[in-house]
């Protein structure tokens, strides 16, 4: 298996190959290549729907993660017993929401999607940002992932968590 990528929206002209390549780079950095991962790109309507159903927040957002392993300690690698368990879960990318943010802040769409995906993968690996301590831990992890990504690709992405801090 690997990364299953689905594009269910038509608002944003998505470059599938670019997104897949970036996700493969993130997987390589995290050492999670043997785990399957689902990336589903959706529009505001759909992400708002999912946000409402699962988090009772009736607004669109940039990313929602659905971990396969729900009680992982942050950063602890899952130990699957069977091939069926070699799955980290699914990430829904609110690409329309992200595109609007990029337009407002003059950011590159696909670079931002990669940073958002890194954030989503961290959630699949047990990271949270409910408490100050959790937030610091997750920010450190995202910083590491994206600095490695930047080193490998020559790009300069910033963690989503940094933008989260502006909202706190």
């Amino acid at each position, binding site marked *: 298996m690997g*990364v299953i*990528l689905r*594009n*269910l929206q*038509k608002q944003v*002209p998505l470059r*599938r*190959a670019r997104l*897949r390549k970036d996700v493969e780079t993130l997987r390589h950095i995290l050492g999670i290549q043997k785990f399957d991962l689902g990336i589903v790109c959706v529009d505001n309507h759909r992400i708002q729907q999912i946000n409402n159903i699962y988090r009772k927040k009736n607004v669109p957002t940039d990313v929602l993660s659905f971990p396969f392993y729900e009680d992982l300690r942050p950063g602890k690698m899952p130990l699957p017993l069977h091939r069926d368990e070699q799955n980290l879960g699914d990430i829904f990318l609110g690409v329309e929401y992200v595109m609007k943010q990029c337009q407002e802040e003059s950011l590159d769409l696909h670079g931002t999607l990669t940073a958002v995906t890194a954030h989503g993968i961290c959630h699949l690996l047990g990271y949270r940002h409910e408490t100050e301590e959790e937030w610091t831990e997750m920010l450190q992890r995202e910083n590491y992932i994206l600095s490695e990504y930047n080193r490998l690709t020559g790009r300069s992405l910033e963690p989503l968590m940094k933008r989260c801090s502006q909202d706190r």
Partner: protein
Amino acid sequence: MLKSVVRAVGAAVRISSVATSTARTLPLSCPTLCSPSSATTRPFTRSLWMLNNNGASSGYRPKLFSSKALNPSISCGCGSLHTEGDKAFGAFLSDEIKEELKIQKNSNLPKMSGGWELALNGTEAKLSRNVAGEKITVTFNVNNSIPPNFEEEAEQGQQKSAEEEPEIVSSPNFVVDVTKRGAKHSLVFDCHFPEDEVSHAEGEEESDIFAIREVSFQPEGDTDWKENSYTLNTDALDWALYDHLMDFLADRGVDNTFADELMELSTAAEHQEYIKFLENLHGFVKCN
């Protein structure tokens, strides 16, 4: 077989539309002459054994079935067969056509965005555009373009009110031809709408809106399909390569927006053809 032939999805199923009096479901074998409600049937008055007539010289040829229904019951000068069943059929078709015209959203076909030109030849549609010297054509056929899962929904729909009945959507297979200027071969993509993508329930979509099934090089122009051309099947394809192929199509205007608009166009065209068929059938059956 022409290059642009599109594979059929499966048997077409017609279901009742929102107006309750339409009956768009056609049985696979239509009743012909003996409509149970209208024909007069005569019970056998002779034993079958007695029909085994050895008197060849009598010149008498027994008939197994002798029914009023087989004898013209409506006098007409055209010389064709007209039965009570035909009359009932014609009346039924009149009502059916009226109802279908009522629910027809627009007698004009919806326009595609992106500068696509449409050419219709019966049930076959061809969309074409030029992009920087490349010619892109998309061909599809509205025949057999309604997924069979509508049949299941129709059965369930019998318990629902008219407002809850599902709308018929045509999601045809389509073939994309990309021809570069001066090239002898076109790159041909055989595409389809994965079935679960046309589910009506909100939030149940899991697949991409449309998918590529096969890719091959074929001689440019409407020549026969070359069976000995290598055909790339996407079932077991590297996913990165698949994504590049999807990006390739998107750059040429075949993206999710296009796919949605194609479904709308196909649905309207299919409905149009269905109404035309009913009208032709009505003309064929009815006594003029």
